[in-house]
């Protein structure tokens, strides 16, 4: 870890990705993620990496597919409408068991919407916006430091499971500056190690005789019996991920809680602020902040439902998309209420406090 620097989230995650060994980056400009692509344009040449501004988000995600198929750490980023355009490609990446990191700096939708922070792509990220049965590991940062840290986590998880990983950020985290400390950059030896790990499945040169097995990067299985096995194996992988990779933060969770709040990313920061104020006023409210929104940390919510807790409240910057996951976790034990803001508006701590009080 080095010195603290003050940096925008968009730039911090780019820097952290480079340190995590990302040497290929393909993307298309869009507000509010453009600082990310611009940082990559500036820095990739300095580390002998590849930066290509693709002709579109579609092209970018398919470039990612190609580079990932060669076993390299590769990333793309965009914001909401651009992420929609990547859905076919993401389904292919998932179907072909490829590691890749995709950053979504969310903005207000649907359609062209606006360019302010929002969390309206929760469904798309967690339930799979593309076709077919697949899942994308989805990390939801709530600070610039965490945004940066998630770059290396995302690459590690992507490699571990050979699966795409989203970092589901938003315009606020992308645009704001906070102090951030970076991990040490990967060394030549680390790169060799990574290449070695990927050699078994990725595309590379073959010195073997004709008709020995060559490597295919592929999601096509025209025989349904074979595809069935393939998808079942994907299913097992997703179960494995659900078992191992749930991450969350508990904030002020204790025996005195009258309410448990659930909130992720930018929204959770505001909720924390409200919780602090209420605590000072003697009202005890806890927060479960999912760090992975898929796999979803249901058990963390269940465990937090102490006897005094009368209600669970979900705070998001959308029409209530995460409510479904919370309801599944709570499983009828307590009422689940929702408060949200849409269109790029972030609720204030005061609004959150009020909503909590109303629901006590």
């Amino acid at each position, binding site marked *: 870890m080095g010195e603290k620097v003050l940096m925008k989230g968009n730039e911090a995650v780019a820097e952290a990705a480079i340190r995590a060994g990302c040497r290929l980056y393909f993307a298309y400009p869009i507000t509010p993620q453009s600082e990310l692509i611009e940082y990559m344009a500036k820095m990739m040449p300095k580390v002998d990496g590849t930066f290509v501004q693709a002709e579109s988000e579609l092209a970018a995600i398919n470039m990612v597919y190609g580079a990932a198929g060669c076993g390299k750490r590769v990333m793309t980023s965009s914001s909401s409408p651009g992420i929609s355009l990547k859905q076919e490609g993401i389904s292919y990446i998932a179907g072909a068991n490829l590691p890749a990191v995709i950053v979504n700096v969310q903005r207000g939708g649907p359609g062209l919407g606006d360019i302010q922070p929002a969390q309206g792509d929760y469904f798309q990220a967690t339930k799979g916006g593309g076709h077919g049965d697949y899942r994308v590991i989805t990390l939801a940062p709530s600070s610039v430091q965490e945004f940066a840290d998630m770059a290396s986590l995302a690459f590690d998880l992507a490699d571990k499971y050979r699966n795409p990983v989203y970092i589901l950020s938003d315009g606020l985290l992308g645009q704001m500056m906070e102090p951030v400390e970076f991990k040490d950059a990967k060394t030549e030896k680390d790169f060799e190690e990574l290449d070695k790990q990927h050699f078994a499945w990725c595309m590379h040169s073959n010195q073997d005789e004709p008709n020995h097995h060559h490597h295919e990067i592929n999601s096509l299985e025209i025989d349904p019996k074979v595809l069935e096995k393939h998808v079942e194996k994907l299913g097992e992988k997703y179960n494995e991920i659900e078992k191992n990779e749930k991450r969350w933060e508990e904030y002020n969770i204790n025996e005195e809680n009258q309410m448990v709040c659930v909130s992720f990313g930018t929204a959770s920061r505001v909720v924390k602020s409200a919780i602090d104020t209420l605590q000072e006023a003697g009202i005890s409210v806890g927060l479960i902040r999912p760090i992975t929104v898929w796999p979803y940390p249901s058990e963390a919510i269940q465990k937090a439902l102490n006897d005094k807790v009368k209600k669970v409240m979900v705070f998001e910057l959308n029409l209530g998309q995460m409510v479904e996951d919370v309801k599944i976790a709570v499983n009828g034990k307590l009422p689940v209420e929702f408060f949200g803001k849409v269109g790029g508006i972030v609720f*204030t701590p005061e609004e959150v406090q009020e909503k909590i009080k109303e629901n006590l």
Partner: protein
Amino acid sequence: MKTELICSGFGGQGALTIGKFLAKAAMKEGKHVSWLPSYGPEMRGGTANVSTVISEKPIAAPIVSFPDILVALNQPSIDKFGPKIKKGGLLIANKDMCPKGLNREDIEIIYAPMNQIAQEIGDAKVLNMVAIGIVIGKKRLVKYDTLEEDLKDFLKQKNPDLLQANLKAIQKGIEIGEQN
């Protein structure tokens, strides 16, 4: 202790930079900081503003709705954010561009002719540094030395000639801040 600022002005007046230098210096002094600009098509003219929070404790919400301090480089900034300054808070306004000012009794207000001061120093662009100086002089949010060091680092690369003008502007600002 937590201080929440909004710095606001026309695009090009350097409002965002005020927040950035304050946040950076505070960070170097071990504080928690956050800096959140308005962004978007406002880049084409219009106004720009930034929420800056400096705090002893981790910062939950980086959006400032009700600032302790408003630095307003033009009148529209006062019109927009002036009414939201916390009771007992502080308004630092650029007298040259704020003809109407703000009519509130429950806050402190410092009007300073920032354009004029900057012109006197010899560089119209350092008007935002005057504002930074006032904030420091008045509130001691960060130390002058930290800022100086930072500016030296920054301007060494970009434009060493500007450094002196900047430092002078800050010092002038501090004076004003201390007097008020």
